[in-house]
């Protein structure tokens, strides 16, 4: 088959079974758009901002496990995409981003819409390529998909100069189903000796706890994790990124850990003697002050990325490998009729944990007239029967969603954990909805975050995406305000936004349904009404308690046992 560069891109995406391409056209990618138009194979979703294209591809990837693909033009198209790429990078999400570039002959001359895309993206991609010869294009595309989706996944950018896509230059093309690279061979199989050592520690553990992260979701290890944790009878907590990998409705689940984690999860971490870290990376939002982090623990760490191991916290038993592979090997080592754990000690450990649980650290006063954000999430959970895909933006609403929606399934909870990108929620929800056309998708957001990609309401109209937007409108950049209340003597510098739009009218102007709710007693009915509109996007603007704070909280720099709980006055 003789194809031009642009036809190769269109044909390759089809051969690679790419379902959706999220993008936005411009001069440098016009040849590609023309080829896509003629081929009419891959569904192209036209967003309204390149950042949203990447977030949508990202939401698609997170919720489906497949690689997300975005296409943007050179210069401003590519720079707009950078936030999306960095978001995916910090959460290790497999993406391929194709950016147009000025023709090879003028690269380096400050040509119109030229930026050094490879240079700009380098620190926030797993890898990137500049295609300098159309003969390398097909192989580069294959390498990009391979690198993005294997090992520790991540975004890969391919920068394609316009002349490479010239419709008049045709070369032979054939699809390579597999590829190998001498410089890239991720380790999959865990080291058996290390795994045995880990099982020895587990057997003797008196106060063990599983601490799991996004790696469990990425490696599709949820099933083996559940089986292992349940067979061992150990308590389990997870990071923000790992929610859903272990069912939140299960008795062994302690809730999320870290800065806004539960009392029982953080205390169990503090007192554990054997910490089993699985696909988690000991980020500062988890560890708190390192000096107080799990002071008595022997640490087992399973991760596919050797550089994650002993980066922030020195570990005792490192196991490099794919999480699912390692957990499966561990399961094989469990004996059927013998004791695999120290049953007596574990019983005592649970007794202690139950004492911590009695604090009921997530309780709040439900009887207020003004709407509590926590209440909205609890009702959202009930109305969607715990079965919705939930995306979120960044701020207090994100933490409330993580704390009060009980995620039972992996890939159900979609948020920007590592970069904390406001504006992620709505475009990510588009990708999720496209990946799961018949499922319920809700985006939990705040009046600050939603305005960072509000233009995507138009995309949602164009493609009829019936997302439900749950806007927890506290008329504040709430998370910023909370820090200012706690650490800056209540000086609310720029955390209040004047001139908040009328979200109902705004939504309606895009052709969707808008609702506003300002009384606790109306919350449930409004949600029911909205979710009953199966084929419509509904934006519910919940006017919530303005100065609500997220508790528990470990202040930055404090130890994990130094949590601040909600003051009693809040609870009556």
């Amino acid at each position, binding site marked *: 088959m003789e194809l031009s560069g642009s036809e190769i891109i269109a044909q390759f995406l089809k051969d690679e079974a790419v379902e959706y391409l999220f993008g936005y056209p411009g001069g440098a990618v016009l040849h590609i758009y023309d080829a896509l138009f003629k081929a009419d194979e891959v569904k192209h979703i036209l967003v309204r901002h390149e950042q949203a294209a990447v977030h949508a591809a990202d939401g698609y990837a997170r919720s489906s496990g497949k690689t997300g693909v975005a296409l943007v033009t050179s210069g401003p198209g590519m720079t707009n995409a950078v936030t999306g790429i960095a978001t995916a990078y910090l959460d290790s999400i497999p993406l391929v981003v194709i950016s147009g570039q000025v023709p090879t002959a003028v690269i380096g001359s400050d040509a119109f819409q030229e930026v050094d895309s*490879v*240079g700009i993206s*380098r*620190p926030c991609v*797993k*890898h990137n390529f*500049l295609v300098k010869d159309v003969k390398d294009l097909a192989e580069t595309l294959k390498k990009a998909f391979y*690198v993005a989706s294997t090992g520790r996944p991540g975004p890969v950018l391919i920068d394609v100069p316009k002349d490479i896509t010239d419709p008049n230059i045709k070369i032979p093309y054939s699809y390579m189903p597999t590829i190998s*690279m*001498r*410089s*890239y061979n991720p380790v999959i199989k865990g080291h058996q000796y290390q795994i045995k050592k880990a099982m020895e520690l587990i057997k003797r553990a008196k106060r063990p706890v599983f601490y799991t992260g996004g790696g469990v979701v990425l490696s599709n290890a949820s099933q083996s994790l559940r089986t292992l944790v349940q067979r061992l009878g150990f308590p389990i907590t997870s990071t923000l990124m790992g929610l859903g990998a272990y069912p939140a409705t299960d008795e062994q689940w302690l809730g999320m850990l870290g800065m806004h984690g539960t009392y029982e999860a953080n205390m169990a971490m503090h007192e554990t003697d054997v910490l089993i870290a699985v696909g988690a990376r000991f980020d500062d939002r988890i560890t708190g002050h390192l000096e107080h982090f799990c002071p008595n623990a022997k640490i087992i760490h399973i991760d596919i*990325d*050797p*550089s994650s*191991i*002993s*980066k922030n916290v*020195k570990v005792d038993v490192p196991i490099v490998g794919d999480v699912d592979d390692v957990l499966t090997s561990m399961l094989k080592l469990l004996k059927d009729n013998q004791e695999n754990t120290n049953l007596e000690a574990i019983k005592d450990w649970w007794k202690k944990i139950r004492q911590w649980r009695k604090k009921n650290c997530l309780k709040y006063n439900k009887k207020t007239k003004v709407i509590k954000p926590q209440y909205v999430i609890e009702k959202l959970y009930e109305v969607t029967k715990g079965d919705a895909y939930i995306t979120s933006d960044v701020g207090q609403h994100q933490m409330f969603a993580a704390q009060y929606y009980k995620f039972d399934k992996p890939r159900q909870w979609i948020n920007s954990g590592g970069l904390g990108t406001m504006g992620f929620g709505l475009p990510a929800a588009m990708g999720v909805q496209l990946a799961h056309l018949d499922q319920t998708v809700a985006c939990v957001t705040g009046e600050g975050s939603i305005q960072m990609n509000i233009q995507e309401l138009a995309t949602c109209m164009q493609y009829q995406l019936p997302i439900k937007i749950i806007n927890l409108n506290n008329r504040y950049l709430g998370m910023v305000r909370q820090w200012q209340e706690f650490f800056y003597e209540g000086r609310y510098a720029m955390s209040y936004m004047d001139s908040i739009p009328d979200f109902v009218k705004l939504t309606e102007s895009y052709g969707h349904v808008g609702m506003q709710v300002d009384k606790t007693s109306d919350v449930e009915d409004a949600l029911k009404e909205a979710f009953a509109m199966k084929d419509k996007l509904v934006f519910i603007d919940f006017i919530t308690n303005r100065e609500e704070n997220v508790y528990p909280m470990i202040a930055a720099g404090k130890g994990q046992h130094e949590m601040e709980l909600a003051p009693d006055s809040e609870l009556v």
Partner: protein
Amino acid sequence: MRHIISILLENEAGALSRVAGLFSARAYNIESLTVAPTEEPTLSRMTLVTRGSDEIIEQITKQLNKLIDVVKLNDLNVHGHSHIEREMMLIKVKATGSKRDEIIRLTTIFRGNIVDVTPNSYTIELTGTSDKLDAFVGSFECDSILETVRSGVMGIARGNSALHV
């Protein structure tokens, strides 16, 4: 501690900036860095000298290995292994009057070569460990040194073990 890390990397445009970018992004220290293609033209050999605690060096090697363009690397300073290291310097010094003979003697002692001569200056080529080059530079008065250029350190492990693909 000072470590010399030898790296084989894809001889691709941008590979060098990935390594340099990694060091600046993660605030690792680079003392010197040399790079040139190898006998296998698709590969470059880089020698990087850095300093850090054992933990930092461990992270550096892991992060380097994670770069897709890095094919293989070797820390020449791991315990129980010895290595040879060399750096080359070209140094131009003032050479007038009685200094001219003195500099020739000094150069012989250090096993250097005078590679260019003018009525007022010598240019000397010298190879050795960085310490040796430092010592040579130190034997001149500051104002008699006109120019120095150093290659940065290259290193290779002793014995049969070899870094290749």
